[in-house]
């Protein structure tokens, strides 16, 4: 479904991606892990065409994202949902307007009840009720904003969902809820998911496969079980750093 071939990207004179190769199969949840600044979010932005590679190509549903015309890219994006790290809800709009904006005007025009129904349904998917609809993003909690961000990403029933650290900064209860939403999206929509995460626990909970990005390349790919048992030095180093960070917090 998503094929990343030899992607290179330099930002501010620093090489961030150095020939990344990665494939996300149809219907699977692939978790992309790596240290801070490893280029995980940058790679995700290449998949949806917010960034273009210096070299290499990203294919989504067999179509090259980097060489897509404006109309082709718009069509590809209609098949994708993107969950931003901090929600990225438009703060001048209410939650209702934010969700409405993510739906195609044509669908809403055809059926007067389509918009309100889909808005309530997508909020219910992330365990929120319609009491938040007329609030602005700054009037709800960070966890709720993140869940509304997920609702916005799935409201148009995409085939592919990209998650940029969907659980970072959430309390344990919200982490469980967001993980459930990711699983629901796969079961109910059959969506292919690429999830950037720092959350090691989420790997076991939701991921079918794990890929580790380090030094600008994919250093490991495998199931979560293989990942945790791997003797790969990059994996050991990443897991060691995570364990150290968790011990420090504890």
């Amino acid at each position, binding site marked *: 479904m998503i094929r990343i071939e030899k992607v290179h990207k330099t930002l501010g004179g620093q090489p961030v991606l150095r020939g990344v190769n990665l494939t996300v199969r149809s219907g699977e949840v692939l978790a992309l892990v790596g240290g801070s600044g490893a280029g995980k979010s940058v790679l995700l932005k290449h998949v*949806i065409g*917010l960034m273009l590679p210096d070299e290499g190509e990203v294919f989504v549903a067999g179509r090259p994202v980097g060489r897509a015309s404006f109309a082709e890219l718009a069509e590809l994006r209609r098949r994708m949902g993107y969950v*931003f790290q901090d929600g990225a809800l*438009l*703060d001048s709009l209410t939650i209702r307007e934010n969700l409405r904006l993510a739906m*195609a005007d044509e669908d809403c025009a055809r059926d007067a009840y389509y918009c309100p129904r889909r808005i309530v349904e997508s909020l219910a998917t992330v365990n929120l009720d319609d009491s938040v609809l007329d609030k602005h993003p700054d009037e709800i909690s960070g966890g709720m904003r993140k869940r509304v961000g997920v609702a*916005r990403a799935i409201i148009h029933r995409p085939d592919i969902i990209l998650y940029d650290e969907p659980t970072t900064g959430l309390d344990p209860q919200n982490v469980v809820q967001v993980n459930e939403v990711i699983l629901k999206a796969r079961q109910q929509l059959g969506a292919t998911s690429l999830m950037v995460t720092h959350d090691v626990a989420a790997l076991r909970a939701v991921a079918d496969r794990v890929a580790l990005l380090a030094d600008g390349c994919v250093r490991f790919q495998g199931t979560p079980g293989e990942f945790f048992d791997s003797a790969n030095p990059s994996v050991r180093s990443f897991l060691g750093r995570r364990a150290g960070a968790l011990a420090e917090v504890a």
Partner: protein
Amino acid sequence: MRRILEHLGRSSLLAAAVVSALPHPQHWLAGAFEEARRQAYGALPLVLFLTGLGGAVTSQQTGYQFEGVLPYWVIGSVVAASVITELAPLLTGIALVGVVGARIAAELGAMEVTEQVDALEVIGRDPVTYLVVPRVLAGLLAAPVLVALALAASLFAGWGVAVLVTPVTSAEFWFGVRYYMRDFPLFFALIKGAAFGLSITFIASYVGLQARGGSRGVGRATTRAVVAMVSALLVLDTLFAPLLKLVPS
């Protein structure tokens, strides 16, 4: 030099994107009117305050300088000439930079650094159509209206001060104003206002969307935008001056 060329290239691309969004008013019309209302109401108190003071100062200075040299009604002519061709549009522009331009640059800068602009793009909405076009067209609409109100405020303030602090009478002052008054300078002031409104909102939008790197980036972008807007205002003002030669005598 390379940076200047980069900015010229990017701003030209933005201008082209704004023009290409114009044939789809269903996406920007409502936003443009709402934004125009916001800009006009937001800037109006400062515009009236600044232009009122501008008219008052011009009136006083003219009275002091010309006392005993020229007939008093000349005060009315000088005040009218100064405020219509120069002070009202320029002071309105400066008020717009502070109230509207800085707000737009900070707003769009904050949207850029918090990925709201990316989010719009991802959900299939063109950020230029939704964010830039309504703001720029609103500037084009609101600024001439504000200039017209500024002209009235500065003339009335000039008249009030002239009558209070110089020996000129109301009849002499308004005779002077009417003696100078022509259609072209009024039209010129409104056109100048529209050009100022357009350039202020466009520069603010462009610089705001270039913001990078969190709240510091937003602060830097807002400062850059204010410097660029004030500079552009004065450059445009200088370029407009020769057009006044077209005034029919």
